[in-house]
């Protein structure tokens, strides 16, 4: 029989020289097939003497394994080369623009309300709501604004049809929800009320519809120091300025006593407006201790309970925070504006993940 080493060299040379898959397969059949050369040699082992057979059998097995491995390896190599060739033919133009996905946005008013709720929610406030169309009692009288009170004139009220006494009004502030909550629930009360409000005024800084957020906290012990704590924390969190100067000034609202307006620090240094330390103050909200008459009007004993309330304009704080120059643009639904000032769907504000991007 042939020398297995010589045979191996011969076969390996043929494997290396095989031109294609078919040649390789023919080679495999010729050596390892049923009638293949190496198969035949394996068959010849039976006629050998037992002592010879063992050594020759081992040598043949090694030879067979090596040939099979060489053919498999060459096959894999050819398959790889085939795939590479095919892949090159499948080339596409990857500079083609992708199919457009419409981009949605959240309106800055919604986003700002979400931010406000995130902050006050952290302080234990829950969101309460009430109707936009109100009666005179909830919107004015119960809030210690009796008929002919001079403060009524400053409200520029919209009216619905009806006689003078019973006609409905579009709520001029979110404060009637204070009344609705206090007449329905017992203290302790801790609510915020974001919502639509209406005043018959329309110019660059007034819109017939705008949004406010109201806050109300009633219990036995909360005082004006707590009000200060609550609102200073809010302002610093909302505007994301840790050391934001916040100033409380005496003011007047019929439904609070004492009353205050709150200013935050700002600067126009270098011609650019910025919220923070500076020479200026900017009024952003009104607040105070709930007037005892208001508590009594809601059936809450003012000798036992006290608390504070506050209210601010959503658009105003949004304009200040996001540098939106004109109030009227909020309601124009101009897509260029909405895309520029809007927020992406997954930018959900929270105190853990942060308010703004």
């Amino acid at each position, binding site marked *: 029989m042939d020398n297995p080493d010589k045979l191996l060299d011969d076969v390996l040379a043929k494997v290396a020289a095989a031109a294609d898959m078919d040649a390789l397969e023919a080679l495999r059949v010729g050596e390892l097939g049923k009638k293949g050369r190496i198969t035949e040699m394996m068959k010849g082992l039976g006629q050998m003497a037992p002592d010879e057979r063992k050594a020759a059998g081992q040598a043949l097995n090694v030879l067979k394994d090596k040939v099979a491995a060489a053919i498999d390896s060459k096959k894999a190599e050819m398959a790889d080369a085939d795939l590479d060739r095919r892949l090159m033919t499948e080339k596409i133009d990857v500079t083609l623009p992708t199919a*457009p996905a419409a981009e949605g946005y959240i309106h800055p008013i919604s986003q700002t309300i979400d931010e406000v709720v995130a902050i006050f929610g952290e302080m234990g406030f829950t969101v309460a709501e009430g109707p936009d169309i109100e009666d005179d009692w909830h919107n004015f009288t119960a809030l210690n604004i009796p008929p002919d009170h001079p403060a009524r004139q400053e409200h520029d009220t919209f009216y619905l049809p009806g006689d003078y006494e019973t006609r409905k009004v579009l709520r001029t502030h979110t404060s009637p929800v204070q009344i609705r909550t206090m007449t329905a629930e017992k203290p302790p009360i801790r609510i915020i009320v974001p919502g639509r409000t209406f005043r018959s005024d329309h110019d660059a800084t007034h819109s017939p519809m705008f949004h406010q957020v109201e806050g109300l906290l009633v219990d036995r012990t909360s005082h004006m120091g707590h009000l200060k704590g609550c609102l200073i924390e809010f302002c610093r969190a909302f505007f994301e300025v840790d050391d934001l100067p916040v100033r409380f000034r*005496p003011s007047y609202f019929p439904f609070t006593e004492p009353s205050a307006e709150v200013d935050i620090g700002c600067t126009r240094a270098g011609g650019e407006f910025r919220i923070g330390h500076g020479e200026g103050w900017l009024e952003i909200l009104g607040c105070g201790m709930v007037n005892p008459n208001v508590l009594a009007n809601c059936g809450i004993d003012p000798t036992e309970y006290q608390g504070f309330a506050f209210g601010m304009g959503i658009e105003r704080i949004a304009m200040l925070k996001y540098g939106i120059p004109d109030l009227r643009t909020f309601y124009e*639904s101009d897509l260029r504006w909405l895309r520029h000032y809007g927020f992406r769907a997954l930018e959900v504000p929270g105190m853990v993940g942060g308010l703004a991007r």
Partner: protein
Amino acid sequence: MKFTLSWLKEHLDTQASLQQILDTLTMVGLEVEGARNPAEGLETFVTARVVEATQHPNADRLRVCRVDAGNGETQVVCGAPNARTGLIGVFASGGSFIPGTGITLKPTEIRGVSSNGMLLSEREMGLSDDHDGIVELPASTPIGVPAVKIMGLDDPVIEIAITPNRGDCLGVRGIARDLAAAGLGSLKPLTNGPVPGAFESPIKAHLDFTDETKDACPYFVGRYIRGVSNGESPKWLKDKLTAIGLRPISALVDITNLMTLDVNRPLHVFDADKVKGDIRVRLGKPGEKMLALNGKEYELDDAMTVISDDAGAEGLGGVMGGEISGVTGATVNVFVESALFDPRRTATTGRKLMLQSDARYRFERGIDPAFLVDGMEIATRLIMDLCGGEPSELVIAGGRPDTARDIAFRPDRVKGLCGVEISRDEIQRILMILGFSVDGDGDAWTVRVPSWRGDIVGEACLVEEVVRINGYDKIPMVPPVRDSYLPKPALNVNQKRRALARRTLAARGLVEAVTFSFMAEAHAALFGGDTEKLRVVNPISADLSVMRPSPLGNLLLAAGRNDDRGVADAKLFEVGPEYFGDGPDGQRIVCAGIRYGMSGPKHWSAKPQPADALAAKADAEAVLAAVGAPVDRLQVYTDTPGYYHPGRSGELRLGPKTTLARFGEINPRVLKALGVDGPAAAFEVFPDAVPTPKAKGTARPMLNLATYQPVERDFAFVVDAGVAAGALMAAAAGADKALIVDVRLFDVFQGPALGEGKKSLAITVRLQPTEKTLTDAEIEAVSAKIVAAVGKATGGVLRG
């Protein structure tokens, strides 16, 4: 409210700087809106004498002046007609900025003569429009000193906002009192002693009211002054009024304005010779007319307080005097009125007649009822000083109403309500300087309210007085105490749904809008609004005249506006209220959206489609799924409101009554009425109508993952063209509820091969065995059930 620093100092003895005064005003609640010194920018101008004025050699109208401004002579060419030798005027040297012209002076040559400065007119100084000549100062004026000092211009004008409760600060004296309390000085005494009357007034006053209406004018003080001469006011008074933007008119009128602004005591002065008979204060007569001082005629009614004489109405109490009996330059005898008018009646009268005045503004906020006589005495002195004359005895009708009231005050409440520690001595000091009197000691005080503080009605008001004067900045900042360490969720289930709806739609590529709750009446009618009950009586404009029955109209109009601006494919939504009644339950939240124009811009890989009903349906379904509606149990109904295309719209209902959503193309008639091109598809989802799932803990139901191979089989049915795909799919799904887990429609085909009025609907049905692998025979059996069920429900047969 405007006043000057020097005016304030007439009432307040203080060493405080202007800045201290401004800061204190704001911090006691008298918010400074502005402070401006008219001398600003004029500091460099000095007094100067024209040593000699000679005719300009080359110009008839010009003079060449040698000017001495205290540091040698300067030559100036001047065109003013009054430029003459010896005149003392105001000189601006070269390099000065002239505020009235906006020009910076440079040495120049005028028609060949050099000029090195300017003699200024009032207009050039920015003081007035007077440009008839240069400023002339008295001959005794020293030379070379700042002109603003000599002209009395160095007096800052302060403007503050007065809240409606602080009527007492509508006079400079009230402001001074607050500043004194805040520690900025002391309040100066007022000269208000009686002026003896020389005779009995020939005009008497009568209050003609019933018991019910006597509050209209409970108290009237009058005085006749004879032999006055009503000329121009002296310079000090004119300057005072001019400084705060008032126009001086005549001495008598200026005195009433001064009294109003200085001590908050509105007065009226009648020309006594034009008063017929006595003064009667009464209610108006319906139809009665009066010509007011502003030259307009008003028709009165019986709710208005009228000052009248025998000839008729001569004034509207607390609002405005009449033209007929007003004073003029020829007035010789006057009757001065200092009266008290009811705040509410005054406000109502002014509102009804749309008549605003300084008097009304003050009376409706409440005037000191104890200051009528004092006011009269001060005014009498002023009139005698400026106009001469001889006063009568006082004419008094009615009497000072008893407004005295005591408030029980616990000084501990200062800390209890405001959290700030203030000593009892300081509390008492503050109250007393503000005019309160304090009685008692220990924990329970009795505090008497001064007559001018009608706004103080309870203990909380007194706390506010103490704390605001002490300074809100001294209140400590204390974090509110929370009941529990971790907060409860701030949102309830419906509020959470709105947030989910919003962000779901934004994630689907729609842009959120916030549109007005109003819309035009004609547009509201398109959406079924109750335009009578929900009409705004006093709208801003006709476009915003009714409460919207749906946000869709506003969104469509917005899409149209965007279209006009070149954005032709608006996808907008709004989560907000729609209105159907005027009661507390007359509104509901709707999540409404529109797809307008094409689905997107032209693109090589995606062909844009016009907005269609099924795209809107997909939006509605996505929102419903997000808010937890049982989407697989909803049924599609095709009876929709008229603003939808009748054949291309539907409602998703839970049972026949509960509509959770609507979708469809907008009816072209509606688009036309709104004036937008379209096409547009819309959806409305009512998230609050989705049933709230019963509380059953947070655990999900047990998950059973099938271990056996699922099988899918396709069926193509030929049905009548009118058969709803939904009905066919429901029939197939119902054929074996245990095995069939999904039915998908994968082809809809109509063509001649099927015959007239027929279509083919092809579905894939997925079978999921749970106990063992299905045999061919079992699959065949289910298939037969499906074919039978579809056949029964729709008449459909398998396509051959």
